[in-house]
């Protein structure tokens, strides 16, 4: 950040002489101080998990959910400024609803990522707004079967719709991560927030690209990774929140739901056990030292 103080970093949408938009970079800083969020794309579903740092003993335990449902089949979690995350979710819900209004069918995860990428990018274009101080992970399950059109009350001829390629697979899990710049990529495993580096290292070990990890195991891995990522920030207590979306014949029937209490507790138990096992290979990172405690971030 050598150009701090030269004046090019005071306004959004302004390029510095070397072609950077500092306000967007500063927004990323807000993300880097937030609690870790991850997503794992398994062969039969998607898991989302977040580390909720407990900022006060007076908070109601188990309340204050941070992973939101966008549509029946889709969820999102974000790291950074929590109110900005709510803004993101509110817009994503509107996009999902308007998609249904136009196309009479649920939005795919890829289309949602594209819409929200565009929305976040628009907040880097004008000096009258600031970029989003969040990086969001969007996970969903696109139906592998032909769904009835919204509002359909019966069937026409039994031939069905045309234009289909024989044997082609449709639908499946989707996982995308959207940054404050509006940039987004599809991921097998995504991580953001304070513990992202540790989490990414753990995700890479899973060989997710092979497409072999089951949702059931994905839940356990997600819990473990959040616990491992938290180890760098041990002095603060946290709550683990997890949601999942399975295939239509899986446990959630293609819906985005909270991971049931028993499964979550079992995953946490295993995570704690795994952590005790490799306590010694811990390494402390000092480079993302948080700024002063900010109540907007968790």
């Amino acid at each position, binding site marked *: 950040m050598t150009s701090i103080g030269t004046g090019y970093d005071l306004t959004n949408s302004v390029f510095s002489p070397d072609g950077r938009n500092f306000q967007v970079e500063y927004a990323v800083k807000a993300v880097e101080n937030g609690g870790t969020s991850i997503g794992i794309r398994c062969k039969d579903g998607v898991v989302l998990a977040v580390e909720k740092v407990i900022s006060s003993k007076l908070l109601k335990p188990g309340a204050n959910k941070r992973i939101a449902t966008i549509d029946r089949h889709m969820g999102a979690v974000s790291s950074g400024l929590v109110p900005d995350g709510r803004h993101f979710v509110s817009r994503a819900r509107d996009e999902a609803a308007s998609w249904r209004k136009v196309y009479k069918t649920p939005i795919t995860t890829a289309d949602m990522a594209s819409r929200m990428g565009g929305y976040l990018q628009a907040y880097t274009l004008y000096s009258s707004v600031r970029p989003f101080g969040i990086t969001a992970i969007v996970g969903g399950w696109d139906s592998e079967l032909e769904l009835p059109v919204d509002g359909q009350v019966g069937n026409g001829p039994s031939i069905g719709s045309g234009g289909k390629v024989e044997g082609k697979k449709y639908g499946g899990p989707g996982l995308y991560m959207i940054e404050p710049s509006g940039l987004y990529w599809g991921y097998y495993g995504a991580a953001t927030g304070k513990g992202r580096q540790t989490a990414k290292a753990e995700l890479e070990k899973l060989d997710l690209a092979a497409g072999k990890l089951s949702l059931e195991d994905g839940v356990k891995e997600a819990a473990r990774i959040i616990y491992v990522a938290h180890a760098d920030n041990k002095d603060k207590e946290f709550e683990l929140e997890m949601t999942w979306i399975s295939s239509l014949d899986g446990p959630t029937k293609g819906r985005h*739901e909270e991971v049931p209490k028993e499964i979550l507790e079992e995953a946490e138990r295993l995570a704690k056990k795994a952590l005790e096992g490799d306590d010694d290979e811990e390494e402390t990172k000092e480079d993302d030292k948080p700024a002063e405690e900010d109540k907007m971030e968790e």
Partner: protein
Amino acid sequence: MNHLPQAWGRPRDDVYGAYDGSYLQTHGPNQHTQQPIVTGTSVVALKFSDGVVIAADNLASYGSLARFTDVKRLRKFADSSIVGFGGDVSDMQYLDRLLNSLDIEEAYSSSGHTLNAKNLHTYLSKVFYKRRSDFNPLWNQVLVAGLDDDKKPFLASADLLGTTFSAPSLATGFGAHLAQPLLRKVAPDEIAASKLSKEQALAAVKESMKVLFYRDARSLDKYSIAIVTAEGIDLKEDEKLENQSWAFADQIRGYGTQVN
């Protein structure tokens, strides 16, 4: 054919004379829906001790033509309520999508809040009333079956005018004339309804559907039937009327080839 869209697919002027486009004119009063087009007939419903039975046949008529024979007119809401639609089918589809989006919004938070049948009925009646006040009615009469705030059986009607009504048994359309007396015999008041068993209610509703098929020329022998209780919804969408007897028919003047 020419480049004007309003002429596309219409008889040629040079053969059939100028097209009468008077109805396309924009002056004069703005007209919205004046009549239903594709319609569903009766919906019948009856409360019993711990729930509601509701039924409607699977026919959508286009005037007197039996146009669609697999139309499901009982729509689920949030796995806890059933809305039975009589009247215009495209308006039903619009409302179905509206309720679908409402259900999605309700499920955003997993905190255990749900809209029960009573809330749903209030909502639908406001939608109907708003639309009729805009002179753009949704041409339906609906029955909402489910549970109320106290988890007691709930059954109420709302229609295109925004009129609401509640009773231990209800029927829309032709059923209001033919089925209602039969149902009232079984459940004349709330107390009687609260003593009915599920089987009794089911039998009474099935009997009503049969009588309606006998006498309503816009009805079908294929129907949907649902039982709504605190345990959830048991919806069957492919039922067939059983034990029909048309023995009464030749007693009716005008039946078949009989002329007087």
